[in-house]
């Protein structure tokens, strides 16, 4: 084989590998883009009304069902969500995320005991959301709540993810 032929072969090899790379990119970019797209869809942070102020009794914590206003059309019941809403006094409300800060299971409010308890790994929180017992690393996450025109409004939010802050 002459040096020319060798160069030609090397060139053809590189050409084919390069073309394969282009083909992979043509197929791969839309695939990856489509699969990760939902992550960048901004769906939370909308104020929605959860009823009249007078619907809520001072000192009581109740569960409130909300429907995500920006859910996908086929979400059905999965567009629903709930939070624990506590009326602290005449004007102040606290909205607690139902997700345990340990691993996200839905905490239940035991009204007489004044505690939130998690069914999964035994996390317990006081009525103000601070940790009373068990593995949760931080207090229950709170929603933004405001009152306007006699209505209680909450700002929808993402499922709070407890992240590792240090390596």
């Amino acid at each position, binding site marked *: 084989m002459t040096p020319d032929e060798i160069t030609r072969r090397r060139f053809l090899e590189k050409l084919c590998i390069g073309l394969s790379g282009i083909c992979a990119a043509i197929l791969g970019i839309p695939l990856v883009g489509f699969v990760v797209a939902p*992550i960048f869809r901004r769906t939370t942070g909308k104020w929605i009304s959860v009823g009249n102020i007078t619907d809520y009794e001072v000192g009581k914590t109740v569960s409130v069902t909300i429907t995500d206003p920006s859910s996908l059309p086929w*979400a059905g019941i999965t567009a*629903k969500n709930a939070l624990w809403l506590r009326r602290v006094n005449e004007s102040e409300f606290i909205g607690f995320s139902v997700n345990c800060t340990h691993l*996200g299971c*839905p905490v239940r409010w035991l009204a007489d005991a004044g505690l939130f308890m*998690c069914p999964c790994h*035994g996390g317990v929180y006081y009525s103000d959301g601070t940790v009373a017992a068990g593995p949760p690393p931080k207090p229950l996450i709170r929603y933004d709540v405001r009152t306007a025109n006699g209505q209680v409004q909450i700002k929808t939010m993402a499922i709070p993810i407890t992240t590792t802050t240090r390596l």
Partner: protein
Amino acid sequence: MKRFVTGTWRWLDDRLGISTLIGPSLKHLVPRDARWWYVFGSATMLAFIVQVVTGVALAFSYTSSASQAYETLEWITNEAPFGSFLRGMHYFGASAMVLMVGAHMAQTFLFGSYKFPREMNWTTGVLLLGFTLVMGFTGQLLRWDQTAAWSVVVAAEQAGRVPLIGNFLAQFILGGTTIGGATLSRFFAIHVFIMPALMFTFIGIHLMLVLRHGIAEPPTAGKEVDPKTYRREYEELMQKTGHPFWPDGAWRDFVFGTGLIIVIALLAYFVGPPTLDKPPDPSILHADPRPDWYLLWYFALLAMIPRELEGYLMILGPVVIGVLLLAAPMLNNRGERAPSRRPWSIAVVLLSVIMIGSLWIAGANSPWSPNFDPAPLTEKVIGANSGPVFEGARVFQSKGCLNCHLISGDGGRRGPDLTYIGDTLSESDMIIRIVNGGVNMPAYGNSIRPEELAQLTAFLQSRKRPMPAALEAADR
């Protein structure tokens, strides 16, 4: 007629080359003494085939839509002919596959079969184990009920603990920032397309490697693996004492496999598929999510890791175990194969079984979870129907004490059993505990009234071991 069939086959085989393609694989020589210990690999593959067949069947009716999957599952289970049976086969097939992977792995590890030249047989097998577990988890999620929906949240929360990219991973799993329309279809695509494609590929490679290096002969104590001479010795052994895989070696695989498939079918028919929980409505807060049995041990682990170590163990634990398993043969690929000369290998298998087994039992009992619906204490247990002791028992229930503490067998198991607490704690000790809380116990100082506290301690003080009859008589 017979001549026609034979003739047609000859013609087809000549043009398609079937015999020349698979003949050598079927007839390759295998060790004569590779007997019943060697059936677990083929049993795993058979369980996989069960999964493919029943999975394809279920996909004919299952709809991977967040709003409709639950209804299609109800229809498949309750109305479709064979539907319940197919779901049962798919569930018990998955269980069988996990068990058989475990048995196959333990056997190849104990027999030292992962040593030279079969290191990559082991490593591809470990990848297949990982894929199997991913299939198990994603499969449970496709049973799109309340437990499935909350399991996705738990998975996202765990992924969230990965440093730096945790949040991104969590949202990738959820298909957004909350459970919703995008969540289920992602897991469907992963469970039905991506993972099976990976598994077919790696099963192919795994089998190719089995043919390339041959089935490891059962180990003999004192006969060490030396990479310089092993291949030649193995070749000589096969020529001398080996017999063809088909049918001399394969018949045991067929017998065991048939038994396995019959057991799967019987379980599917008589036990049936896992019952559907409530619908996947995230606003139903009465949920009690538990993973299927093959991940119950991990659920227990998550409840039992000390809080300070959690961040490390939850992420680093699986990574370290995975890397160790993948790299195991590279760390030690020569020398003795016989388990009698590698007692630590028996210890590793036994310890793994004991560890997973005890975690599994812990997960099944989950004593760390509060009992949300304890049976109310009866007057007989309380020992009074009025007065402070009786009122104290009512406080004990209303304040949630009974959710975590046992009294005469009723209640939760999160905290200590208080059946005889009156024997060990004085009244003032009790008040300190209740008001200030303790390790894993909430402080009630802000939420209990003084008279309630007095009643509660009166009730707890009355929890004493019954006096033996003789002493009681002497007392009188």
